[in-house]
């Protein structure tokens, strides 16, 4: 690991929902994690393990109940105000009334960029995700996979150093999914961003990541971190690499150990 400032630091972070109500839920308990710049981190675990909550804490979409979340050395709210991360959700969340190009320009408008600069950047980003010819289309004219590529282009448009992805391919079919995984890897190696990727697919996590953070539920804890030392750059042949299957087994066993500990799951 480099000695540079970590991209994300969790220090004794916990998150309780409905703190004062009878249905209080401890979503995350004593999370400690450091993510280095340029890493590709996957968060994986059973539903209810708080992996999305963890991501949303980085984005300051929710606040921790206790502990500290630092993003590029700053508290998460400050990092959000500095626009240091881009967010991709499971749904593309494109705005229906905007063309594809204007969807990509949305964050740039919020940032107050001049129109010409915005348009040039949108063109550049759409070229990056290979959707240039759809700039003037509307979201409903694109397939689900294409919409998600637009969402990625939008998240990268203002050049945040961190990309947060919350099950971005969860609603897509397997073939589209594999194609987009390659695309994300390509973008990651081209741009050098830090990526934090929430998924419930073990092969997806292993294929994409430099490290896989395995979580357990009730309350959400980090139960282990698996280093994925598969050769870079990765491609179709990675999925046939013997180490790929070893790593999948390692992650799966890590997850199963947690299941044994909490039989209710």
């Amino acid at each position, binding site marked *: 690991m480099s000695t540079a400032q970590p991209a994300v630091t969790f220090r004794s972070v916990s998150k309780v929902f409905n703190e004062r109500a009878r249905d209080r839920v401890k979503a995350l308990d004593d999370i400690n994690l450091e993510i280095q710049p340029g890493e590709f981190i996957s968060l994986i675990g059973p539903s209810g393990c708080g992996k999305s909550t963890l991501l949303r804490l980085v*984005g*300051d*979409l929710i606040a921790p109940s206790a502990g500290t979340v630092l993003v590029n050395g700053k508290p998460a709210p400050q990092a*959000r*105000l*500095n*626009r240091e*991360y*881009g*967010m991709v*959700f499971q*749904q*593309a*969340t*494109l*705005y*229906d*009334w905007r063309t594809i190009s204007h969807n990509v320009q*949305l*964050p740039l*408008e*919020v*940032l107050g960029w001049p129109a010409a600069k915005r348009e040039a950047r949108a063109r550049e980003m759409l070229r990056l995700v290979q959707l240039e010819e759809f700039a003037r289309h*509307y*979201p*409903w*004219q*694109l*397939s*689900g996979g294409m*919409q998600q590529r637009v969402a990625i282009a939008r998240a990268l448009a*203002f050049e945040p150093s961190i990309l947060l992805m919350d099950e971005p391919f969860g*609603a*897509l*079919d397997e073939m589209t999914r594999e194609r987009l995984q390659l695309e994300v890897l390509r973008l990651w190696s081209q741009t050098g961003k830090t990526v934090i990727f929430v998924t419930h697919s073990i092969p997806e996590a292993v294929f994409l990541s430099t490290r896989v953070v395995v979580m357990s539920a009730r309350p959400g804890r980090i139960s282990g971190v698996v280093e994925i030392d598969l050769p870079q750059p990765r491609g179709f042949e990675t999925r046939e690499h013997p180490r790929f299957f070893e790593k999948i087994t390692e992650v799966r066993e890590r997850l199963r150990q947690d299941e044994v500990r909490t039989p209710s799951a």
Partner: protein
Amino acid sequence: MTVAQPLETQPTAVPGLPGWWPAVRRAGSVLLILLVLVGAWEGYKALGAATGGLIPFTALPLPVRADDKSMPHVWTIVGVLFQPARRGAEQLLWQILLEAALFTWREALAGFVVGSLVGFLLGVVFVHSPLLERGLMPYVVASQTVPLLAIAPMVVIWGSRLGWPAWASVTIISAYLTFFPVAINTLRGLNSPEPTALELMRSYAATRRQILWKLRLPAALPYLFTALKISASVSVIGAIVGELPSGIPDGLGRALLTFSYYYITGPEKLYAAILFSALLGLTFVVLVMLVERLVLPAQRRLE
């Protein structure tokens, strides 16, 4: 938004038929229903004539009397439009009614504009202040449960005391009806974006104003047009009701009132006036729909 949508969801014409065919079909179905209604009206009258005003095979009278003094023939109603409004008058009834309708429409339009603006602003205020929404919404709802007939004379009296022109009171009465659907639907529309659409804005550290202009307002447009269509039709009702206590002689309100006095001797004139009132409301709604078509693509319209 669903995830996997086909590339072409534009409403396409049936293959082999020209592009204007759907419009013709729609107009045809409207015409067909009009014919059915006319047929039902005349059929009911024929039934009444055949049975002497009784329900067939019983000694019970029909619920509505079918004679010409209660239900004039459709052609009598249409025919009276092309006769002088009064004995010896120059103008035909349809000309009088058209002038009255245009007069009433001006009042309704003013009420529609004022009411829609008020309703829209209320929606915008409410979406930003849950406290105001909780506090004021019961009154907004209650305002619509008070009979308009009770409020209209009060507004007219206050208006005349303040020295307003009579049409201004009518506009307020019309606006009183129109603001409500716009307020409710604007609020619904402004709240319609999915949570992730709002979180996206939060991730950009967007200001409230940016969220309003770039997300909430465009998302609310389909809801707003739904409300404006309702408002267009009720603004006409508000204007007609408002005309009665104001003593405005030029609008449909007075025409309806006058012809109802002569209902016993000539019911067809009242029916003709009712027809024009309905046509006025319909025309206004169609105008709003045309604007909606210009502003919103088919995929975004709520229909």
